[in-house]
C-alpha cells in the first residue's frame, strides 16, 4: 500500500569488463613478433658476411645454443633463489612483531641493488676463492635481484585493505588462514610485478657471469670484444636483449593468468 516507492539500491552498478581472451592476450602477441623479426634480421645480416675462423668459433649453432641454455639456467636458478629468500622475508617483515625490521632490511637490500654488479661479482671472486664460479655469480645476482621482490612483497601485503583483514579476523579466521586466503592472494598482482622486474634484471646481470668464467651469453659479447670482432659482439648483445624481452613477455602472461579475479 505504500505510495512512496522503495528506493532502489541497485542503481548505477559498475559493470566489470568481460574478460575476452582475445582482447586480454592480444597485446601479448606483438612482443614475440618484434623479437622474432629482430632475430631474423640479425641472422640474415650475419649470413651475408663471410665469417673468418675466429668469428666462426663463436657464431655456430652448437656454441650459441649452449650459451643460451647456460644463460637461461642461471637466470631461472637465481630467480628461484630470489623468490625463496625475498617472499618469505617480505611476509615476515609485514607481521606485527617484525614490522619494525622492515626499514633497516630494505636499506640493506637497496645497497645490494645500488652496488655495481660487476664490482660485486669480481670482489666476491677475489674474496672467496674457495667458492665455485657459479656460486659466486649466483650470490652476486641474488644480492642484485632481491630488492624488487622484497619491496613488492612488503608493499603488496601492506596495501591490503585493513578492514578486509579485520573482518576476516572478526569472523574467526586464524592468522595463518588470513595470510594464505586473504592477504597473499590480494598481494599477488604487486608481488608478481616485482618478480617480473627481478627476472628482467637478472637476465641482464647474468651477462656479466662471463667475467668469473660462469658462462652465458656474456661469453659471446666478451669474445667479440677480446677479438675485436664487431659481428660477434653485435650478435651477443642482440641475443641478450632478445632473451630479456622474451622473458619479460612470458612473465607478463604468467602475471595475467595468476591475477585473482574480481580485483580489476
Amino acid at each position: 500500500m505504500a505510495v512512496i516507492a522503495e528506493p532502489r539500491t541497485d542503481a548505477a552498478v559498475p559493470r566489470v569488463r568481460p574478460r575476452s581472451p582475445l582482447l586480454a592476450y592480444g597485446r601479448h602477441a606483438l612482443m614475440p613478433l618484434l623479437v622474432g623479426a629482430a632475430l631474423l634480421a640479425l641472422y640474415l645480416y650475419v649470413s651475408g658476411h663471410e665469417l673468418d675462423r675466429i668469428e666462426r668459433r663463436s657464431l655456430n649453432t652448437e656454441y650459441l645454443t649452449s650459451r643460451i641454455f647456460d644463460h637461461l639456467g642461471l637466470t631461472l636458478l637465481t630467480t628461484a633463489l630470489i623468490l625463496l629468500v625475498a617472499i618469505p622475508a617480505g611476509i615476515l617483515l609485514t607481521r606485527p612483531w617484525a614490522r619494525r625490521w622492515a626499514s633497516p632490511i630494505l636499506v640493506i637490500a637497496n645497497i645490494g641493488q645500488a652496488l655495481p654488479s660487476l664490482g660485486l661479482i669480481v670482489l666476491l671472486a677475489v674474496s672467496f676463492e674457495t667458492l665455485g664460479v657459479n656460486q659466486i655469480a649466483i650470490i652476486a645476482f641474488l644480492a642484485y635481484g632481491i630488492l624488487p621482490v622484497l619491496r613488492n612483497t612488503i608493499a603488496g601485503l601492506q596495501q591490503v585493505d585493513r578492514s578486509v583483514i579485520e573482518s576476516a579476523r572478526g569472523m574467526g579466521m586464524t592468522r595463518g588462514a588470513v595470510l594464505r586466503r586473504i592477504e597473499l592472494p590480494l598481494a599477488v598482482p604487486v608481488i608478481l610485478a616485482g618478480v617480473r622486474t627481478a627476472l628482467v634484471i637478472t637476465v641482464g646481470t647474468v651477462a656479466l657471469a662471463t667475467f668469473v668464467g660462469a658462462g652465458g651469453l656474456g661469453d659471446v659479447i666478451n669474445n667479440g670484444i677480446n677479438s675485436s670482432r664487431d659481428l660477434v659482439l653485435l650478435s651477443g648483445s642482440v641475443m641478450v636483449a632478445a632473451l630479456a624481452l622474451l622473458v619479460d613477455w612470458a612473465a607478463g602472461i604468467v602475471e595475467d593468468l595468476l591475477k585473482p579475479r574480481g580485483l580489476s
Partner: protein
Amino acid sequence: MTDVATGTIRLEKLTKSYDGHGKPAVDSLTMDIPAGEIVVLVGPSGCGKTTTMKLINRLIEPTSGRIYLDGKDVTRENPDLLRRRIGYSIQQTGLFPHRTVADNIATVPRMLGWSKDRTAARVDELLNLVGLDPDTYRRRFPKQLSGGQQQRVGVARALGGDPEVMLMDEPFGAIDPLNREALQNEFLRIQAELKKTIVFVTHDIDEAVKMGDRIAIFSQNGRVEQYDTPEKILSEPANEFVSSFIGAGAAVRRLSLSRLADVEVPDNWPTVGADDSADRRRVAAAGTDRDFLLVLDADRRPVGWLPAAEAAEDGRTVPLLGALGPGDTLYEALDRMLTYSSTGHVVTDAEGRYRGVLELDSLRTLIHANNSAAGQSQEVS
C-alpha cells in the same frame, strides 16, 4: 545452556587499558545484554563504544574483567572458535574483493565444516533474506555491487554461520540517507524474523532510537551514562550529558517510537464501495460535509478518493497519496502530512485493508496522548 537464554551476553567489570595512555579506553564496564534484542551503543567519537564491541568477540583482548556468552565465561576461550559463533559486520563491509558474493557469505559455514550442499543452501537463503536474487548475485564480485548491495552482502555474511549474537559497527554509516533508511527498515524486518542478539554501534542518536530495543549512551572511557529503552532515554534522560547528547527535539524524536499499529485511528470517514451504484454514491455524498469520499474495493482495500461533488457522475477517483501502514510511526505520519499537505491520510492494516483516516487534528490528539503516556508531558510546539 538451558538455564540462560542462548544469545545472552554479560560484560563484567571489563577494562581495557593501553600502555602509555593514562586513562583506560574502557574502564570497569558492567553490562547485561538480553537475548534477542538490539542493543545500541551510542556516543561521541572516542567514547569507547567500538572498543567495547570489539571486546565482546575479543578482537581487542580485555586487560581485566569477564565476558559471558549464554552464561558461560568465554574470556579465556580460543578467540577464533569464539568469533565463529558471533556474526561481525562493519561499516567498510570488509568484503573479500577476490571472492564472489557466494564465497564471501560461505566464509564462516566453511570454517564450521558445513557440507557443500548445506553451505550452498544457506548462501541462497541469506541472499533471499537480504533481498538479493541468488541467481543474479551469487557469482558476482564485490566490485560489481553498489554500496547498498555490498552492505547487504556484509550483513548476509555476518549471518552465515547462523550465530545467536551479531556485532555491527555502523553497518549503515557509509550509505546515503535514502538507502540507509531502506536498509534500516529492512534490517528491522529481518530481525523481527530472526530475533538475534545484536550489539549495534553508531554515533547517530536518531539511528539508535530507530534501531534499538535498548540504548547505552557512552560518554568517555567506556562510561555508560544511561542504559535503557529509547522511550525512557528520550523522556527521562538520566543526566546533563544524556540530555545534551540526545539534543533538542526529543519530543519529536519520541514520535518515531509509536507505531500506528498501536494507536487508535478514527474510522468515521465516509466511504463507498467501488462497485456501488451512482445513486448510492450520491446518497453517501449528501450525508457528509467532507469534500472527498474514500472508495474501498470488495476486500475493503482503499482504491482512491472520490470528489463528493462528482459522486453521481462516472465515479472517477483521485489517487491516494501518503497512505500509511501499521509499521509507520507517528513521526512518519506527521512527516507525510507536511509533505503532501492534503487533509486526510488513509491508514491501513497489515493486509492493506482500511483502518481509518488520520487528519492533522486527530494526529495532534494522538501525539498528545503519546506524550502523556511517556510519563513526562512536554510542549509539542
